[in-house]
């Protein structure tokens, strides 16, 4: 077991973990942050995407021990994140979720798109979303929701 200290949703967490424990398993099973969803556990489906040091990362292919000192944000800690809350409203308005399994991770990828690519069009949004799989195949609503937030943000800037 190795000692680990990191910030999870703005709170300091100190814990002992086995080196083989993934960040996703540590956060789900020890911190009860079950908004992180596990689909494939080898970095393909994107369902476990969270923010590590402010950037989207796959928590199923990162070891918890290698995140000593990191700043983690999961969906449970995103109520005060204005981009996430705007996206959540847009996902609701534009039917951006069906079963909801991919949704928390979709929101983090969407957050990355609207902050990193403020000029993105729908085609670019689809390209950027390629790393997150929705097996309900509800992409049309997801793309509309992200475009709505992008357009709102562009209108606000004008």
């Amino acid at each position: 077991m190795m000692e680990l200290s990191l910030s999870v949703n703005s709170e300091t967490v100190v814990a002992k973990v086995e080196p083989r424990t993934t960040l996703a398993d540590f956060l789900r099973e020890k911190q009860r942050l079950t908004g992180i969803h596990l689909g494939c556990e080898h970095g393909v489906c994107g369902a476990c995407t969270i923010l590590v040091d402010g950037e989207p990362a796959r928590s199923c292919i990162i070891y918890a021990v290698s995140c000593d000192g990191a700043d983690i944000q999961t969906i449970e800690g995103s109520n005060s994140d204005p981009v996430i809350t705007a996206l959540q409203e847009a996902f609701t308005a534009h039917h951006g979720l069906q079963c909801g399994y991919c949704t928390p991770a979709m929101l983090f990828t969407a957050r990355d798109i609207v902050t990193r690519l403020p000029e993105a069009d729908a085609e670019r949004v689809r390209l950027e979303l390629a790393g997150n799989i929705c097996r309900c195949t509800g992409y049309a609503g997801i793309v509309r929701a992200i475009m709505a937030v992008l357009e709102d943000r562009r209108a606000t800037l004008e």
Partner: protein
Amino acid sequence: MKSPKLTYVRTRSVAQTLELLSKHGDGANILAGGQSLMPTLNMRLSKPDLLIDINQLDELSGITVEGDMVRIGALSRHAAVLGSQIVAERLPMIAEAMPHVAHVAVRNRGTIGGSIALADPAAELPACVVALDATITVESVRGQRNIAAADFFKGLFETERQPDELLTEIRIPCQKPGTVHAFMELSRRQGDFAIAGVACAADIDGEIVTDAKLVYFASEDRPTLALNAAAAIVGRPWSEQSRSSAMAALSDDLDPMDNLQGSSAFKLHLQRVLSGRVLDQAIDRARAQ
């Protein structure tokens, strides 16, 4: 889908890393971004005795210009390479290839050194470094070696790097005036493993192709320089006839492996199609220069 039990060390210096590699050799795996290694561990396809985490070694990252070369530290993340102004201006092939390297969440963690050391035959960066005549530096307690990219890739996930060596940096010559770069890849979905792909560095004088390096990936066991296809087009203006000659000659350069992505014949067909497209692109860029 959980890693086997493993012993983990986070190293504090290159010297400490090299000592551990010297002691454990084949039994140790370097953990850089882990974006390919961890899936193989989760699927129990590998079981290292020791995992050596080098993520704290800041001296191994960074992108700098040194004379007519760009030096990229092995631990530089794909996202950093993609966002680098130096790379965009001096290594346009790498800049063009980078968006094909997985997805943003993976690019935020994965490293250029990891991709090159792994030598996945479907990976973009090994093909680029061969096409660009890069030099790959490895270090061990025995000393440092600089290996030409063309000699580095030995086969399926096999490289010239010895088990006690750490890949520390890549030096890539800057694009020269008169040389054009182009990169193309086919995959089922953006960021997925390539089905076929080519990295092209061509010298074009007027309409005449005076030199062409065409390096194909995702079809052979390693990035493969197509000498016959290049010979079919060099010294001539690019034309429909050149296109047909290059496509015909490509079967002397490539013998694609069958895999889940497609049959050998299908992949050869795609590589031929890409050959024409990538040279069209190169010619267009040369005209625009």
